[in-house]
């Protein structure tokens, strides 16, 4: 069943930058869609457009979620959808967490925005979520502030915040970038479990082809605000049609292959 359909999405910033230009996306319930592309190809802007979080930008096209046209929703209806049915893990977790509130508060706050729950009950939910995403000593850590956490732990807090409402769709924008390999693997495992246990659909944004290969069913390759290639992960990875995709794949150093003298850069190929 189709959960999210994006048709002819275009985003133009007031500065004149056309960050997304005629993009189509399809995501089925319980599936994982990888969105890849070089830096600046419009991946984050696309995800913000889906949640209606862009400012100073002209958004056109259709965004249908579970039969509802999101661009036509009023503020109230959109608010009830955000967090509750579509949750988002942002790139750069430090700047995305408010430095003035404890991490538990910020998770509990998301929970209370959509549930009738007292502070205590919501706090318990937050602690449970921190435990689930693998924060050690969650009860004690819950009262800490974002600056007291490491990068990987902050990313987990973001994930806990996104998952506490059991959304139907999770948009994960670079959930593993800037994390070391072991933490990366843990977070990917977490997302895999989420998808298998809760049946959450995931839009996984990354420029790391390895991450996509490990988690996604379908993949969309973005370049300058457009989808240049799409299809099942296996097909796109094994038989890339576009030179751009081939370039992206060639940028991933293969552990099992011979090490090239120099990694190819995209500019050399496109």
């Amino acid at each position: 069943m189709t959960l999210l359909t994006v048709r002819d999405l275009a985003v133009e910033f007031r500065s004149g930058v056309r960050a997304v230009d005629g993009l189509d996306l399809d995501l089925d319930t319980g599936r994982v869609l990888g969105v890849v592309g070089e830096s600046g190809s419009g991946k984050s802007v696309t995800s913000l457009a889906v949640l209606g979080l862009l400012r100073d930008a002209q958004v056109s096209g259709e965004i249908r979620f579970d039969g509802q046209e999101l661009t036509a929703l009023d503020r109230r209806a959109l608010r009830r959808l955000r967090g509750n049915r579509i949750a988002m893990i942002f790139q750069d977790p430090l700047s995305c967490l408010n430095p003035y509130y404890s991490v538990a508060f910020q998770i509990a706050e998301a929970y209370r925005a959509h549930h009738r729950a007292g502070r205590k009950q919501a706090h318990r939910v937050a602690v449970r979520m921190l435990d689930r995403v693998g924060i050690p000593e969650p009860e004690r850590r819950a009262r800490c502030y974002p600056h007291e956490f490491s990068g990987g732990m902050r990313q987990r807090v973001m994930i806990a915040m996104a998952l506490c409402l059991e959304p139907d769709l999770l948009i994960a924008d670079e959930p593993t970038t800037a994390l070391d390999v072991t933490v990366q693997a843990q977070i990917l495992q977490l997302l895999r479990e989420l998808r298998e246990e809760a049946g959450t659909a995931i839009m996984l944004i990354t420029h790391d082809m390895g991450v996509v290969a490990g988690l996604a069913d379908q993949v969309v390759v973005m370049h300058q605000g457009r989808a240049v290639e799409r299809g099942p992960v296996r097909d796109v990875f094994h038989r890339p049609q576009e030179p751009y995709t081939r370039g992206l794949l060639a940028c991933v150093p293969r552990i099992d292959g011979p090490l090239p003298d120099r990694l190819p850069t995209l500019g050399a190929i496109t």
Partner: protein
Amino acid sequence: MILYLLRRLAVTAAILLVICAATFAIFYLMPADPAQGACGKACSPERITEIRTTLGLNHSPLSQFGDYLTGIVSGRTYGTGEHAVNCPFPCLGFSFQTNQPVWQMLTSRLPASFSIAVGAAVLWLAVGVAAGVVSALRCGSLWDRAAMTAALGGVSLPIYFTALVLQYLLVVQLDLLPYPQVEPLTTDPVGWAQSMVMPWITLAMLYAGIYARVTRGEMLESLGQNYVRTARAKGLPEITVVRRHALRPALMPIVTIFGMDLGALLGGALITESVFGLPGVGKLAADAISSADQPVILGVTLFAASFVVLANLLVDLVYAVLDPRVRAVG
């Protein structure tokens, strides 16, 4: 935290001591003779010598400063025998023009200064912050431009001008208010409020403009933060997003300038008090300056400086409570 507090208190005490020494040095270096000032115009040389002895002016500067400090902590007696004047703790000096200890003069003026400062502060904080928040939320709108222009106007109008216009309008033309004079809050609250309305508005006009502009700038910055976007993505109501995630960080710099401004005002609003003829610390300073009553000027300076320094300390402590990052360091 306790350690931090003790350290800050020690630093504050040191700063006060330095201020005390600096103020004392300035007055010591001034060409005017304190004895002459204390004695008045028609004064015999014998009387001047006598006063010099009483004030201890024939001692070395250092020992005079020592006497002064001793006076602050334990009181002192000027002169000996039948001419001796007692200046009880905390002795900030003795005014021979009015025959009163400076401390007593200051404390008798405090209620008026406090009434003016605190009332005006509440007013300008409410008006300034509210206007700044609305301006930031409607950035670029007609309201925004109107409010910011008004704010600029409020900042640039001199106090004596605002004060005179207000008096002309409210007292002379509309007959809404009596001429300002201090009624004690305890016995006549209505009279007290009436007498304070004009000084409050006058001062608030000056500060509200600054606060509106600062609040607007800070709000625009915090509204653009990524964590505000996160708050929206959680599905929080817009009012909660603004109040909790944008306003709270934006208020931090306001706390700083508010502490400073209030501290400075508690030490006397010189122009406002003088214009409205209110017997506050500022008026005391103005009068002391015009009659060259040096001990009083010295006392007021120290007194006002202490308020600023203490406000500074208080701001830092409040900061440590409000900002978890500062708390961790302290």
